[in-house]
Structure formats: C-alpha cells, structure tokens
C-alpha cells in the first residue's frame, strides 16, 4: 500500500463522518431546542418541556394551515400519481417517436429553479384571471411531484412481464378486469409509494405555496410567517420537528414499498429455477 493510499484509508472515514455531521447537525438541533424550556434557541439547555408542542393545537391559524396542507398534499399526490401511472406505463411499455425527449421533459422540473417555475405559473394564472387559492397551489404541486411520482412508478413498471397481462386476457378477462386483478395489485406498492412521496413533497414545498396560494396558507408558508416573531420560534421549532418526523417516516415507507414492488415484478420470469 502506498503512502497516499494509507493516508486516504486513515482519513477518509473521518472526512465522511464530518460530512454527515455537517449535513445533519442543524437538523438535529431542531428537535433538541423544541424540547427546551427556554424561549430562545441557545446552549446551555435550560430544561425539558413539552409545552411548545402542547401549545400547537391552540393556534387556530396553524390548524387552518395544517388542514390546507393536508388537502393540497392529498390532492396533489393523487393527481400526480394518476398522471404518473399513465406516463410511466406509456414510457415503459411502448416505443414511440420522441420518447426520450418526453421522458427528459417530464423529469426536467426536478432540476429547474423552482422559483422561476412558480413565478411563471403565477404570471399565467394571473393572466387567465384565476383567483389564487389552494387549487392553484395544488396545480403547482402536481408539477413538482410528477417527476418523483414517475421515477417511483417507472421502477415499478420496469421489468413488469407483459405476458402476465396477456395471460389474464388469455384466461378470459377483459382489459379493465386485467388492470384490476393483475396490474393494480402488482403495482400497489409502487402506487402507494408514489402517493406518499407526492404527499411529502407537497407538504414540504414552500415556493409554489408562497407564490400561488394567495390568502390560503400552507404549513411551510405559515412557518415562514411566524419566523418574524422571536417569541413564536419555539412553537415553529416544535412544528418543524413534527413535519421532519412525518417526512422521514413517509419517505421510508415509500422507499420500502418501492423496493418491494421492484422485487415483485422481477421475480416473475420463468428462468428462476
């Protein structure tokens, strides 16, 4: 082993540990301060309390925002998943002109600056004379969720043995019956995974909700509004902690389901003895 290699072997793990610390330490501080009795987020900690959490349900504006987030999240997730199923099936099943371009364009919002997209939609919505409501937020969120939904669903549809659907037709089932009895149950984990990812993305999204929401406020926009008041910071930290936990749980379930869907579709080949 050369000296450079030995050096790398010794220091790379330390570098990796530092990097992870840098990534997650700020996020870890959030729950810590949300459980601290002092109103200002500062060390040393003054004592354990749940009062900031207890205070959350007593804030009507927050409850409204939570309800709005739930409505938008569910609608956006369902819409993005339905559209995603169609797109993912088309992209994996058929070969057509412009397929790669289409796939690229659908995925593009992932890397486009969201503020540009949000402002562009805002301009169009205003030009159409549409009021800014949760509906416009939902539309924006569908756009943001769609690439995530599609990539989850594509990994579910890929490797889906087409002869399974043919076998169903061969056994006398109609195409709708085949979709209900074969395609849907086999895709169920991927579909649920897509719904969860969509909901999580929508729940966390600030940009679309901020520009397209008008007077209808979702949780991230509510939090942003509260940051101006120092006294409300602990409540925001508590709320943030809850959102963080919810996101992690939902995304973990989504990923587990996505993997299960993939395993399922890939063990259908007859070549496995």
């Amino acid at each position: 082993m050369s000296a450079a290699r030995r050096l790398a072997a010794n220091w790379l793990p330390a570098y990796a540990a530092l990097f992870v610390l840098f990534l997650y330490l700020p996020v870890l501080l959030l729950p810590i301060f949300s459980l601290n009795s002092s109103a200002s987020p500062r060390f040393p900690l003054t004592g354990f309390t749940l009062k900031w959490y207890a205070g959350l349900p007593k804030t009507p504006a927050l409850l409204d925002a939570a309800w709005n987030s739930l409505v938008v999240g569910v609608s956006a997730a369902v819409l993005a998943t339905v559209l995603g199923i169609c797109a993912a099936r088309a992209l994996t099943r058929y070969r057509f002109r412009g397929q790669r371009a289409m796939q690229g364009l659908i995925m593009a919002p992932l890397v486009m600056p969201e503020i540009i997209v949000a402002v562009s939609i805002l301009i169009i919505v205003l030009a159409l004379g549409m009021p800014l409501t949760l509906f416009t937020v939902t539309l924006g969120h569908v756009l943001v969720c769609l690439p995530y939904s599609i990539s989850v669903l594509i990994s579910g549809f890929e490797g889906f043995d087409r002869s399974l659907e043919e076998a169903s037709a061969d056994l006398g089932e109609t195409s709708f019956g085949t979709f209900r009895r074969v395609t849907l149950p086999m895709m169920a984990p991927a579909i649920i995974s897509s719904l969860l990812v969509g909901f999580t993305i929508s729940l966390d999204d600030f940009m679309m909700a901020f520009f397209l929401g008008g007077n209808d406020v979702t949780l991230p926009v509510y939090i942003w509004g509260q940051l101006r008041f120092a006294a409300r910071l602990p409540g925001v930290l508590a709320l943030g902690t809850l959102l963080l936990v919810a996101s992690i749980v939902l995304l973990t379930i989504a990923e587990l389901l996505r993997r299960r869907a993939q395993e399922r579709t890939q063990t259908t080949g007859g070549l496995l003895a």
Partner: protein
Amino acid sequence: MPEPATRPMIEIETVTRSYGDFHALDRATLTIREGEFFSLLGPSGCGKTTLLRLIAGFDQPTSGTIAIDGQPMDGIPANARPTNMVFQSYAIFPHLNVGENVAYGLKKMKLGAAEEKRRVDEALSMVSLAGLQNRGATELSGGQRQRVALARALVMRPKVLLLDEPLSALDKKLREQMQVELRRLQQAVGITFILVTHDQYEALAMSDRIAVMFGGRIAQVSTPKEIYQRPVNRQVADFLGGMNFIRADLVEENGESIVVDTAAFGRVRTDKPRAFAAKGREATLGIRPERLRVLWDDATAKHEIAGTVVERHYFGEITHLVVDVAGMDKPLSVTETNDFGADDLPLGAKIRLGYDPDALVALAD
C-alpha cells in the same frame, strides 16, 4: 397417430402478418386437426411465435383468415377465444398463490365455490401438483411453475392448448421428462396441442405432425418421420439434423420421380420433391449420416461404397466418422454405434459403407 377422420380444429388460410415491408408470416396455409399434437418448428425469427400469437388472438393478421372449430376468428379478442396458452415465461401471477393462479380464469365462469375447487384440484393433480394450492407463486421451482401454467390453462378446458417454447427454460433432464409427460397428458385429455419450439428433437419426439418454418413461410408439414427422412429441401434437411448433400446429374424427370447419376452412389431413382426445379442438369441428393453403415470384415450389402476414414469424433454411445470417397467433392459424414469398434477405427483406415437406396432423397434448394 391422428385418425384421418377427425375434423379440422384450426384452419389457417393464406395468413400474412406484416410489419411495414417485413413479413413476419407470409401466406401461411395450414390445417390442424382435432386432438392432434402439432408442432411449429423453426429457428428464431421464422414466424412460429407470430403464428401462435395470431391463433391466440394477441395479434391480428394483416391478411388471411383463421378459423377455430369452424368459427372465423376475425376481430375476436384473445379473451373470447376457445384457446389457452402456456407462456414461455409461464406468466404465473406472482401476487396469487398456486390455487388462485389456477382458478384465475374460472372466476369469470361463476361456477360456484365447490365446483371451482373441484376443478382446480383436478387440474393440479393432472400435473402432479395436488396439495400445493396454498404455495406462494414465488416459492415454486422452474418445473413447478411450468406445471402451474399448464394446470391454469387446462382447467379452462380449451379446445386448443397453445404452448410457447414451454420447456426451453428447464434443464436437460427435466426437459426430457416433461416431454414424455406433456405427450401423455395430451393423450389423456385429448385436446389439440400446438407447440412452438426451435428444438428439433423435442418436435420429433412429441408431435403427431410438424410444420417446419423458415423466414415467415411454412416449408413442410408432415409427420416427424416423414419430415426427418424425406425433407423437401436442403434447409429443412439441415435443420432437422446431420445430412450429407451429394451433387448429382439429372438424367430423367417425370411426374413423380427423378433419375440422377452420382459419382459415388451411381444411378439413383427417387421421389421428386415438391417445388423441385433442376437447375439445368444439376440436382442435390441427401442421405442421413446414420443411414450409412460400416461393413465389418466380410459383411456385404447390396449397395456399398468404399472410402477412407479422415476424421473420427467420439460421442459416448456413437462415433462420428468423416469418410473420403473417391469422386466426391466433399467427404461423407457417417454416424456409427460403438458396438463393433467404430471408436477404434484408425485414421486412414479403408472401409466399406453399406446403404439402402431408399435413404437417398432428392432435395429442392
């Protein structure tokens, strides 16, 4: 062997399936009789799977008609046809257990729970899987998947069972065992079986009749023996196994037979193959390597030729000899069993070969 009196089950009339300029299937005409074990044999891309999928209704002919049991199938989708298929990948539904897989098609028939269960049990015992109803689809071995696929199709009591290379995923031993079982099963249920395969031995061993296909066309339809012994052209002869091709000069040609002169085999009269067209005075004869026998010691044959061993290949129960014969442009291949010591013949040995002139067949190009 099928009774000549059985009625036609599948009638394929000048069926073509084209993709643009490419004809996957080109004016195929074929009649398959009730209760027959019929094989579509050919290399990949010959159109055999295309034809099977047209019969199943997964695809529609570009032109021509297909009738099943007298009923024209134009515009009738797969789910309304009296056919069931065993897929190459078996297509076992992975989210259902064995019993649910087999009962899948019965659900549409609304038979009632008791009758449904009875038929599922019956189908599973037919394929020697009795008692495995609750086994998960992903816990099955390759051979078991194949049996489930078979039971799932047979339980529907189709008029025609379609098998798309069902044995290709199995290892050699299991494949040979399943060949025997499939044949027995077919005789027990009496349903018309149509098997797609690229394995000539499989087709020869299992079928009542075989259609050999090349490049989207049906080259020959006949019994295994006839296909093997009297192939119509070089392509069929070559695909079915080893064949010595012998250059011959046409002496006489009439309605049913031709007479040719050859360097080694002398003057031969043989049946005229369908589509035979002599190019000027030239023709091709064929003889299978196992139809040439080494004559040991003083043994004689009515027809014999002399040659020199130039190559020897040992294959356990047989030895493959390459024999140079004076006057022939190519040496002859000879397959000899090893009971008299063909495996010990030294290179350069002078030997005599006996043959039956009936084993010489004229081949169209």
